[in-house]
Structures are given as structure tokens and as C-alpha cells.
């Protein structure tokens, strides 16, 4: 209760642009914008070690889920099984390369990239000062997370199982249970990994050269916006 998270004093709400002074937020609590309700800060109790442990466990589970069969089907002496990547490849070979690529991105590439980036990032920021490239990884991780949909995939597989169960007998495989475990770990990671806390650790030069022709660097305004 006594531990507080202190961040840049004045911020603009990303949801509605309202300028406000953010008070110190107790660890584990949340601060919301009074005008639009956007969450402005949610510092976790343990911002590094706990998400790191969850991310490493999730990465291992992800590897198992990718490498093992999701389910197998048998009917009149014939049997077939599929993995996650196998599903995308079958769509590709059936003349649906765009859908196959989308499935591959949402189930394999984006979750894999997200977990790799989060593990690297958390290891890099363990000791302050955090390297400046951590910011780039953080931005990439945000994009990767937006397109990783393992929970939607799992529900899709369950619907497919019910549909096929009428026609043939279907057995769930190791990959299906690993995907279930992965969802639990990702849910834990989502609550304990706070990009805002990591941004506050990223070191940045106060004097820098302009990066584009005709553009000069914007000046950090956190301390000068007070009326």
C-alpha cells in the first residue's frame, strides 16, 4: 500500500487529450482519465521479474503448442492430424494463400514475435538505465500483440471439433492443451506487463540532433505545461 509509482508529472490523456497532473499511483492500482475514463497508469506490483517469468513460461508453452498436433481424426480406418502451421499450409495448398498468410500471422508469427520481444525487453530493462533501443522493441511488441489471436484460434478449433465430431471421431492432441495453458499464461502476462512502467525506465538524451530535414526536435514539455 505504501509503495507508489511516480511518473512524469503532467500528461495528456491518449483518449481525449485532456491535460492533467498525474498523482503518484499506488502499485497495483489504476488511474483513469476523469473526462473519458481511459486508463492512464496501472503500475504493477512487480514490473519486471513476474512478467519475465510468465513470458519465459509462455514462450516454452508456445513452442510446445506449435510443435505438437492439435487434434487427430479417424474414420473408417483412415486417420489424419494437424498442427497450427499445418492448418495454414493446407489453406495455402488449397488455393487460399492470403487467408493462409493471415492465419499464420495471427497464430504463429505475431505471438512468437510478441513473446520474443517481451522476453528480450524485460531482460534489457532489468538493470537501469534501460538502453534506448528498448523503446523500439516496446513499439514493435505493441503491434505484435494486436495481431496475435491465440484465444480466437482456440475457440475456432473447438467449433471445428464439434462440427467434425458428427462425421468422424476426433481426439484432442497435446497442442490443444498447450494452447489452453498458453492462454492462461498470456492472460497473466497481460496484467503484469505494463508498457508505461517500461517507458518510464527508458533513458533518453535531452540534447539530440534533428532527425529530418527542416524538422527540429520537439521539446519535452512535462515540466513546463503548468499554468
Amino acid at each position, binding site marked *: 500500500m505504501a509503495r507508489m509509482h511516480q511518473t512524469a508529472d503532467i500528461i495528456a490523456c491518449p483518449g481525449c487529450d485532456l491535460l492533467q497532473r498525474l498523482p503518484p499511483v499506488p502499485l497495483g492500482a489504476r488511474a483513469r482519465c476523469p473526462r473519458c475514463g481511459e486508463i492512464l497508469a496501472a503500475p504493477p506490483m512487480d514490473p519486471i521479474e513476474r512478467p519475465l517469468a510468465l513470458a519465459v513460461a509462455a514462450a516454452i508453452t508456445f513452442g510446445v503448442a506449435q510443435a505438437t498436433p492439435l487434434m487427430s481424426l479417424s474414420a473408417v480406418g483412415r486417420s489424419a492430424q494437424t498442427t497450427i502451421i499445418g*492448418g495454414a499450409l493446407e489453406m495455402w495448398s488449397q488455393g487460399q494463400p492470403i487467408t493462409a498468410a493471415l492465419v499464420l500471422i495471427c497464430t504463429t508469427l505475431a505471438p512468437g514475435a510478441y513473446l520474443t520481444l517481451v522476453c528480450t525487453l524485460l531482460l534489457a530493462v532489468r538493470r537501469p538505465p534501460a538502453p534506448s533501443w528498448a523503446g523500439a522493441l516496446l513499439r514493435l511488441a505493441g503491434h505484435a500483440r494486436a495481431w496475435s489471436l491465440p484465444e480466437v484460434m482456440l475457440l475456432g478449433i473447438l467449433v471445428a471439433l464439434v462440427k467434425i465430431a458428427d462425421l468422424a471421431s476426433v481426439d484432442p492432441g497435446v497442442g490443444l492443451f498447450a494452447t489452453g495453458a498458453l492462454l492462461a499464461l498470456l492472460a497473466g502476462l497481460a496484467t503484469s506487463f505494463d508498457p508505461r512502467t517500461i517507458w518510464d525506465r527508458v533513458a533518453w538524451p535531452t540534447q539530440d540532433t534533428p532527425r529530418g530535414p527542416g524538422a527540429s526536435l520537439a521539446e519535452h514539455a512535462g515540466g513546463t505545461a503548468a499554468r
Partner: protein
Amino acid sequence: MTGTALTAARQGLISCGACGLLARAAAPAEAGFCPRCGARLHRRHPDSIQQSWALGVAAAVCFIPANVLPVMVTDALGSSTPDTILGGVAFLYSSGSWPLALIVLVASFMIPLGKLLSMGWLLIAIRRGIRGGERQRMRLHRIVRAVGPWSMLDVFVATFTVALVQLDPLMSVEPGLGVLFFAAVVVLTMLAAESLDPRLLWDRDEIEPRHD
């Protein structure tokens, strides 16, 4: 209340879209770059409304073939049966699993349709400058972004059914063209919701209306 709100834009300040740092614009015409993360600063997402309209209209156009064309074609013993999204819902319902039928109906039909209507309403409310109810519209925008990925459900159902049911010559399932349009609807509506800057829902006069 919203007429007098002190926003960053009114103070010539910009919060970085990537890292959230509050920065002072380098010049009135040229916002410059974030001193912490190096991202280009924008007062609002550039061309947010035009992009959002274009993506939303494209999604609405794709929504028709997505529902009319089959997502899967089942070949069993020489006869082939096409299966549309709503046909799949009817199949699940008639085979006794009505909870799954309801989930697929909501995820594949009602969510995409609701998203298209919601995006249209939000964009019209911004264009008309409708006052009052900003919090509700903000909540609607958040819901649209949160539920968006769930409409990908039928793409995964089709993928894993096709991957598993390949028992030639007894029975095989092939993807239909509908699944491609359906995937396009999902991706386009997700991008449309993402490109709509929520701050535009609150803006009144702090931004020059035709300059973004």
C-alpha cells in the same frame, strides 16, 4: 464541460502516440519528433477520418460476398455441398449445439455488422460535431476495438476443418472464396477502428477542422 477542457492541443503540446511523453511542438506547422522514442509526432493521427471511412466502406463492400459465397465446400462421395457462414450456424443449431451456433452467429455476423454500423455512427458524430454523449461514444469505440478480433473465429473454423478433413476419396473439405472476403472484412474493420483517433471524438475547436 467539454467546451472549456484544457487539452494538450490548445497548449501547443502533443502527447507522443508511441510512448505517451508530453512534448512541445517544434513549430506550429511542423510537430517534429518525440525526444524520448524518436517517433514522428502528430496532434491527431494524420488523415484519421478519411482512412477510417475508406477502410470501413471497403469492409462493408466485402461483407456482402463474405456472406453470400461459401466459406467451405464439402465433397463427400462425389457430391459437393457449399457452406456459407449463416448455413454453418444453421448446421450447428440443427445438430443440437445451440450455444456454439449462437457464438458463431455473434462472432461472424453480428459483430462485423455491429462494427460497421458503430464506425459509421462515430464518424458521422465527428463530422457533425455532435455534442453530449462523448463518453458513450468513447466506450463504443473501445468496445469496437476489443471485440474486433473475435470475428476472425470463422476463418479459424474453416482453416482447421479444411486441414483435418482430407479423407479422399471418402470425404474432403475445401475452402470457398467466401473465407477470403470474410478475412478481408475482419482485417479492414480492425484497421478502420485502429485508424480512428479517439481524441477526435472530443475535439471541438482546438484543431483547425480541415487540417489533419
